């Protein structure tokens, strides 16, 4: 087992276990931290899948951006001191049932396709960052711009929604 394989299985294990723990965790803050672990692990997996740009974007946007926002949300919607933040569970049976059946189904489908097991990831011939940059400005310029507009709208919308200033 070379170091890359070790890293891969370590990241897989980290992602899977943190996601699994996330199901049972009752503390929202811990949940957010577990999600960070999971996302960072995923970033590592992306690197190992030769998608460095996505990996860094994952860290920058998810781990650095969204999670901070989520933590903000946690702080704003829970009491700082006093009782610990405990999240109740409900529909445990339905949720478990749905999750397990979906998992079983997906595993069945994936295992049925033998080419997945034989095919290994490999490094592409092209420089992926370069390729992404060029594609974003040529082939995908339209979705890229729409994404930009979407982000702007979300930014303004979130700011207005969360603002406590009373609209007249």
């Amino acid at each position, binding site marked *: 087992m070379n170091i890359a394989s070790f890293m891969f299985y370590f990241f897989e294990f980290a992602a899977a276990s943190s996601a699994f723990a996330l199901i049972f965790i009752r503390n929202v803050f811990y949940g957010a931290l577990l999600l960070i672990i999971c996302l960072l692990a995923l970033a590592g997996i992306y690197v190992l899948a030769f998608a460095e740009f996505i990996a860094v974007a994952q860290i920058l946007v998810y781990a650095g951006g969204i999670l901070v*926002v989520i933590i903000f949300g946690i702080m704003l919607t829970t009491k700082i001191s006093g009782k610990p933040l405990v999240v109740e569970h409900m529909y445990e049976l339905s949720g478990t049932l749905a999750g397990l059946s979906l998992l079983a189904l997906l595993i069945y489908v994936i295992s049925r396709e033998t080419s997945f097991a034989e095919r290994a990831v490999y490094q592409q011939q092209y420089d992926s960052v370069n*390729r992404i940059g060029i594609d974003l400005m040529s082939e995908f310029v339209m979705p890229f711009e729409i994404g930009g507009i979407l982000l702007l709208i*979300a930014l303004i919308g979130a700011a207005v929604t969360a603002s406590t200033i009373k609209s007249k």
Partner: protein
Amino acid sequence: MFPIAHFLYLGAFLFSAGLVIVIVKKNMIMVLLGIELMLNASNLNLVTFNQLYPDSIQGQMFALFVIIVAVSEAAVGLAIVIKVYHYYQTSVPDEINELKD
């Protein structure tokens, strides 16, 4: 190197876990976390499937846009959660059922 199936198994597991979280958790922020998890699972799949097409970068591109959308979703969702919390003093979605009756 590592077979693609392993990525896909991880993605499936993450997605299922996210689904369970979405259904089971009583706190809206936890639900949001679950949704993020599901989005990431799909992202993982997209990146993985990009490997199946050597000359294409569309999978990664798609993952990039998913991230963009996830950012928007998280920002707006959290804004709503905060607003709802200020208004109802709760972040449990089941308690906000004024439309029910």
